[in-house]
């Protein structure tokens, strides 16, 4: 190090500052998202590995009802991301009632997604799909389908609870607009993960006749 380094420089990374100009909480959420996307990545890789290694992998989804249902689910989840954006915007502008309202709409989207998803699950279970067997081919179809979508559904459900806590807290002025934004990050992440699961689990397993 030369003496020029000894002189105090006021750069972002020189300490005493938050380098990304975000709170530690928000940075923490981003790091959580990194770890969680690796977890989903590992699940998707495992699914791909098993699918490629199994000669009798079933292609069970019919356009009606499975693909239609999954498309509606995708639409609902994507719409809930839009309402979340509106909630974050309202929170930043200090419009508490509007923010809580938009968050309620987001939660409604999450719950609707869960309901449609459970309907989908029940339909498949009715057709005979279990964790360890199915009528069409490799038993791993059921195992990987239920574990992947189950992991995602858990994320949506926990997300709804998380949003409820933040919305109530924001309504009572216990949480800041920053906290709303952080919960929004999580919600968008859950949404984004679905955009990988939808094509990789549903669309490439669809019979289009």
């Amino acid at each position, binding site marked *: *190090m030369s*003496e020029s*380094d*000894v*002189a*105090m*420089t006021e*750069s972002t*990374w*020189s*300490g*005493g*500052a*938050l*380098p*990304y*100009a*975000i*709170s*530690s909480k928000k*940075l*923490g959420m981003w*790091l*959580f998202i*990194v*770890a*969680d996307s*690796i*977890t989903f*990545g*590992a*699940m998707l890789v*495992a699914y791909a*590995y*098993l699918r490629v*290694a*199994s000669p009798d992998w079933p292609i069970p989804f019919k356009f009606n009802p499975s693909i239609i249902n999954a498309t509606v689910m995708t639409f609902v989840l994507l719409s809930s991301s839009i309402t979340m954006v509106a909630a974050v915007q309202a929170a*930043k502008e200090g419009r508490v009632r509007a923010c809580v309202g938009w968050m309620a709409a987001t939660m409604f989207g999450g719950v609707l997604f869960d309901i449609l998803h459970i309907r989908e699950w029940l339909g498949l279970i009715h057709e005979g799909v*279990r*964790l*360890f067997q199915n009528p069409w081919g*490799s*038993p*791993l179809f*059921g*195992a*990987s389908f239920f*574990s992947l979508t189950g*992991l995602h559904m858990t994320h949506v459900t926990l997300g709804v609870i998380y949003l409820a806590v933040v919305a109530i807290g924001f309504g009572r002025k216990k949480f*800041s*607009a*920053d906290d709303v934004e952080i919960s929004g990050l999580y919600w968008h992440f859950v949404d984004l993960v679905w955009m990988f699961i939808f094509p990789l689990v549903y669309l490439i397993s669809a019979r289009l006749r």
Partner: protein
Amino acid sequence: MDHEAAPSAVHHHSPPQGFIWKYIFSLDHKVIGKQYYFLSLLAVITGMVLSWLMRLHLAWGTAAIPLLDKLSPNGAPGGVMTPEYYLSLMTLHGTIMVFFVLTTAPQAGFGNYILPIQIGAEDMAFPRLNMLSFWVTFVSFVTLVSSLFVSDGPPISGWTAYAPLSALGSAGGPGLGRGQILWALAIATFCVGSLLGALNFIATTIDLRAKGMTLSRLPLTCWAWFITAILSLLAFAVLLPACVLLILDHIGGTSFFIPAGLVVSDALQPHAGGSPLLWQHLFWFFGHPEVYIAIVPGLGIVSNVLACTCRKPLLSYRVLVGCMIAIAFLSFTVWGHHMFLSGMSPYSGLTFSVPTLFITIPAAIVCLIWLGTVYGAKLRLNTFGLFAIGFISVFLTGGLSGFFLAQPSIDTYLHATYFVVGHFHFVMGVAAIFGMFTGTYFWFPKMFGRMMNETLGKIHFWLTFIGVYCIFMPMHYLGFAGNVRRYAAFTDDYMLPLIPVHKFITVAALTTGAVQLIFIFNLFWSMFRGKLASANPWEATELEWSTPSPPPFDNFGGQHPVVYRPPYEYNVEGATAEFIPQFTPDPVIKA
């Protein structure tokens, strides 16, 4: 918007009152660091006792070990362990040592205690999360050890839990039912604790550095903990779903890791369709970075301590940081070198072999920087300095045998022999343990406010140093002679002449283990009876030495430290003092 929140605003909580909030559910990073340290100490003693039992059995296979039949009447009838029970103990030894010692103490123990102080922060970024990570880790340890006491003991599938053995359930052998589920639960829980810890470490290092603590002024320990935290965040996130899938194979009836048509004990298994190789891929994608999670904090601690021992700046700070980053990055590209003989395509073997050999380049540069720093230095050889130099020795020894194993053609012969056991015990086990000893002798005055006994420390070092070479060096010869690992007894003709070597190793292991009593005595005796420590007994330069020993609750007594210079300014030309701490303002340096 609270973008302007000052970093120091994190320490929301005030000093706790009452025993429970002060010492058990404490939010203070210093208490949590010590909790991790003592959890590791408990774990390392447990793991070491297990290894003694295994060594005794390997050298004297028919001798009865007292009390063992009380612990497990089925596993060791009459005190002589069955081959299966040997494997159970081996699984537990490996799992405890890798997760609860090598992963826990250097990062979560020392890192928790020292990192915030070294960067001038009052606490970690998320104190509550920090407490949670410790208690999650603690629950994980209890879950793992409880497998000793369930019906048929811990699983026999090794710390790597290779499928299909680990996924079959009790049909596969002792411990594979409930024991294996407990193992998978414990490891999944451990992953959660480590992920929370890693997140906290990264956020702390990025956000809470004191004014003037630029990245290029971070002590190398902080760099090491930061890099290790990134490795943990990415690696444990893969092991977690792998463990969940393994648990599903046990209780959900799935067969992710069990192939079709598997016959065990003449019974066709009901599972079908999965791939045992998938487990190996998921496990080693975590498992190889894990090796560096264990060793990188050691690299940092040794570099930090070496500058203080040699009383001069490290040869090249920037190159050293670059090498640690390079090692960490490469660690994600080499997991397949654990799987050369797994049935993977031989072409994949080559792709994994090349980056493995590449790792030797940054690792060699790190060693050269250390040696270049030691060269011509006026050493102040305290116990921690001896252990730091000992670290270089065992790290090099273990690294050299890595050359052999990195090449698929040679590994074909050496894989699953004692050569591998010797290799990883040197480079990962003993090296990391030496890093922990270095850290203990170096930071003990800061952590406990008293000095350790130097004479006992030096005796401890020399006996341990000679001891570990006596234990692990002969294993390389055993490997060349074709002595397979994971066997409970060596009854084949060609292995019988090797028994005397095993007896020598066992005697060395028991002796070296006994030597650790000197350390334990020194640790606890000094904690209460040692000489009181001054704020900076080693005349070192980092921020932790600016505050009293032990530091007050908020680390700096309400002050906000400011950093003026790089970390290792010993014997700087033109300076008026022999060493210039980081918190010394400018004018002192320019005479």
